[in-house]
């Protein structure tokens, strides 16, 4: 018997698949060429559709960028956040940085896209309300990390504000510098865990 359902265009999830194809192609274009150089028609072509079809889903480049950001953050942030439930701050640092390192090896366009966001925001401030969740996430992550260290007694002497700023600068610096110099390695992670034992 011939399965009738297999012939012709599948209905239903089709539109989601098309959308995903656009996002995937756009993520690569935004990371490789930057927001200003990325072209809607090249992205459509790479995804295998016409520019008109792309504009049906995303009327302009800003909508597309915002969708790529949301899809990328939804994929990456939960994998980082789950390490906040580690038994110690040292393990949370170790786990989140190791995870970031793994993602940057397996899906470099995900972490590089995210590492490029702040430099795009500087050039295109109009994007900032599209990626507002990023700043909230950063603040949430570092304040929770320090709260964990305080709870376990790993942090004793210095103030919370100082710890939040210090670990934020060091870990974000590791992300930016690693991606920009195209050399993400875990030596900073080892150093931060050893430093934590001195606090």
């Amino acid at each position, binding site marked *: 018997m011939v399965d009738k359902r297999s012939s012709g265009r599948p209905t239903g999830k089709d539109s989601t698949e098309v959308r995903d194809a656009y996002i995937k192609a756009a993520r690569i274009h935004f990371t490789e060429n930057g927001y200003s150089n990325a072209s809607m028609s090249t992205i459509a072509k790479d995804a295998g559709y016409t520019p008109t079809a792309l504009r049906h889903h995303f009327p302009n480049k800003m909508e597309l960028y915002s969708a790529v950001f949301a899809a990328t953050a939804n994929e990456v942030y939960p994998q980082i956040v789950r390490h906040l439930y580690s038994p110690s701050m040292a393990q949370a640092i170790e786990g989140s940085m190791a995870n970031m390192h793994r993602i940057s090896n397996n899906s470099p366009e995900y972490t590089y896209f995210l590492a490029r966001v702040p430099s795009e*925001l500087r050039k295109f401030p109009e994007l900032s309300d599209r990626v507002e969740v990023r700043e909230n996430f950063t603040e949430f992550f570092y304040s929770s990390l320090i709260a964990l260290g305080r709870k376990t007694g790993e942090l004793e002497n210095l103030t919370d*504000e100082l710890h939040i700023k210090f670990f934020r600068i060091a870990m974000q610096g590791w992300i930016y*510098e690693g991606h920009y110099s195209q050399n993400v390695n875990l030596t900073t992670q080892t150093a931060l865990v050893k430093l934590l034992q001195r606090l």
Partner: protein
Amino acid sequence: MSTRGRPKGGDSAQTKKKILDAARLEFATNGYDGASIMAIAANVGIAPSAVYHYFQSKEKLYTDVFEQTSNSIWESVTPSEDASTLLDAMRELLDDSRQLAEQLPSYSDFLASLPIEARLHPEFSELLEKRAVYQDRTFRRLASIGIASGELDFLTEDEATELIRSIVMGWFFERHFRQAEIPNSGESILAMFEHLLNSD
């Protein structure tokens, strides 16, 4: 008699410097692709062809701006020989970097955008390697100060170097992105090293 026509001698070095200054600002503001040789020439008050007389191509101009800018920045932020603690050396570095950002904003902005340009334009990947050499010289020197003073004696030289690289570049990029430091971030770095200095 009044002097007429093109003055001779030192003038050519001066013109070259003016072109480099105008080009640095143009590259930092509009990126490599967006930078216009016409705009650079107009800023200096010369013909576009004169820019090509001194620098054969836009690519060469970019490379020369990189060399000149890196030399002067890294020269001024590398800790002096007499810094005996990492705390002092870091304080010096942060202060120098702040001063540079205020007095010569195009220097910091140009260097911050370099790694992104190098990724967009593979012909500049050599500049990324040179950038690493400049960085390593300064950060290894800071690391050895910190290990010798006891502040970072619990780390290997590589670990200390990478930690310092992440801290300094994190502070630098956050300031660049926001066009202002994250409030108290420099102070937090110094307070951390002060704690490490006194806790031994």
